[in-house]
């Protein structure tokens, strides 16, 4: 069991997938010669050459749209959108084309493509470089959405996403990139839509994904000092998400907190809470409490951003509310 950074795990998954399948190609701004703005694609140009690893002009709408066309014509493109905020420029290609092609053309062809994009704060990058917009994509039938929180999951989900015959939005929390973690010698695929229990517990369930898993763990540590045992479920997949795993945990704890870095209102957590307020209602012994960013753009200033991103204290407070 060696150590590996989160970003290296993604790099390795891309490399392994490209070794395994000559149809996998990479597209994006500054991903080839420069190795990516965060270094995620470093070395892949040298290994796989200019035809398969392509620097593109600053043309998000077109590179995603071209990925759809390429996917419909036999390639498996993995396209990088440098910041999730820039997905706004490519939404037609994602939503009207990639997501719908299999369905609306009568199942004639799959659309095997992956859109890699970093979300999240922590770099004081401000309102246009920090947004967590995964809820938008989860609302679009035909897309899959994943958001790993560990190096091993990043590897496994990337391999699965590239092999999936559907368009997958692969969300990478940029604050995780440099983090080093245990990495298996023989890493394996992770099924899209399968949650994992990040920590076992019996008093309440915290459902989360991405970088917020760390926040949940910190909160669980604090709660443990008070004798409260929190179970943490890391969804990993947001569309589809692992309803059964949430229900199973709830059957033990009967109390639910939903946590993510995205803005709380109309965020992905709303679906989880809403769904459980329906099918899990009889299991609930307390209100479902969500923790997310407040309803404001991601602010620039250090203090502002620090207060903006959900922290362990807020999760602990939410836990206390459901334990009341």
């Amino acid at each position: 069991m060696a150590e590996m950074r989160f970003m290296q795990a993604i790099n390795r998954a891309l490399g392994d997938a490209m070794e395994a399948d000559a149809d996998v190609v990479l597209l994006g701004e500054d991903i080839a010669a420069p190795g990516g703005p965060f270094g995620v694609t470093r070395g892949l140009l040298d290994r796989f050459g200019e035809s398969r690893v392509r620097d593109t002009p600053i043309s998000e709408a077109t590179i995603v749209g071209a990925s759809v066309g390429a996917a419909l014509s036999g390639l498996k493109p993995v396209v990088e959108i440098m910041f999730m905020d820039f997905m706004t420029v490519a939404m037609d290609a994602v939503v009207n084309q990639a997501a719908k092609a299999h369905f609306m053309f009568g199942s004639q062809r799959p659309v095997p493509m992956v859109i890699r994009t970093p979300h999240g704060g922590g770099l004081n990058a401000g309102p246009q470089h920090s947004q967590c917009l995964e809820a938008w994509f989860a609302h679009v039938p035909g897309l899959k959405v994943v958001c790993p929180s560990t190096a091993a999951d990043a590897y496994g989900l990337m391999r699965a996403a590239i092999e999936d015959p559907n368009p997958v939005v692969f969300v990478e929390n940029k604050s995780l990139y440099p983090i080093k973690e245990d990495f298996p010698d023989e890493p394996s695929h992770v099924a899209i839509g399968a949650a994992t229990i990040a920590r076992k517990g019996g008093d309440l369930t915290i459902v989360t994904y991405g970088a917020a898993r760390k926040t949940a763990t910190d909160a669980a540590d604090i709660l443990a000092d008070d004798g409260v045992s929190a179970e943490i479920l890391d969804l990993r997949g947001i569309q589809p998400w692992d309803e059964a795993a949430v229900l199973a945990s709830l059957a033990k704890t009967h109390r639910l907190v939903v946590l993510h870095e995205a803005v709380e209102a109309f965020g992905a957590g709303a679906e989880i809470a809403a769904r459980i307020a329906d099918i899990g209602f009889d299991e609930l012994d307390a209100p479902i409490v969500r923790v997310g960013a407040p309803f404001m753009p991601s602010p620039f200033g250090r203090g502002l951003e620090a207060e903006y991103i959900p922290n362990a204290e807020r999760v602990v407070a939410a836990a206390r509310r459901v334990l009341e």
Partner: protein
Amino acid sequence: MAKAKPTACDNRTARLRDLHERMVLIRRVETRLGELFAEDEIPGFIHLSIGQEATATGIGAALGTDDTISSTHRGHGHALAKGMDLGGFFLELFGKADGICAGRGGSMHVADFDIGMLGANGIVGAGLPIALGSALAHQVKGRKSLSAAFFGDGAMGEGVLHECLNLASIWSLPVLFVCENNGWGEFSPSDKMLATTPLKLAAAFDVPAKSVDGNDVEAVADLAGTLSDAIRAGKGPHLLECKTTRVLGHFAGDPQKYRDPAEIEALAKKDPILRAERKLRRAGISAGDLAATSERIDNAVEAAIMQARNGANADFASAAAAVYAGGA
């Protein structure tokens, strides 16, 4: 399109007969679609290309099955010129289970991947990057194919055209950009909405470009052939502007009140089918011959309509199970 292989001297006439027949097919299909829509047999938004058949047909004649095309909201002609099966086409427009898109897409989304027709598209300009990506696949996979992107003059308002011209140019992709310039974008005349032309734009990106009378099917086919040859020879993207005529309104049922009646009347003179027929007559094809073609096509179209009418409705459960490939 079935490709006749006649001997040298009547090569051109034989080809023109093929082209004419294809245009008559498109015309007949769309005339009937207009009627079926008016009679409420066919639902949705229907955009007819009556008057523009020579463009679709001429381009289609230059392409093989391994070549790909992306189309627009006005895509019936492109689909039929590329060789889409009439049965699957009509079943689709009626929303039937056996439609080419299982009744889920309709007029704005007809597609047939087996013949390289990557779909009509409801979003103006959106077909351009799709054709580009298909060309990228041809290039990466070392195929000798090319990819044609149809777009209207109105689509020149969308920035995605600029992006695609640029990307195709720097990557020397095998793309044929085809502008169907009918002078209108919905209810607005393009000369009021655009300060540029397809040729000027192409020039700005070093993409070789030509303009052609889009209602002269032979001229379109000739030029499309020349440009396609250049593309296949590795000379990178090219653009062809086809100046053509939107005889009916933007959509089936559009009364075209925004248009000068004199302008509409004048269009008859430019009819691509009548023009081809005059040429054929001069080349010695008899009126009876042409009438026979027309009758054959009418029969085929009516048979397809009848089949479509009687087809089973698309089934909801199958649609619901088709949101993802691989049944996930």
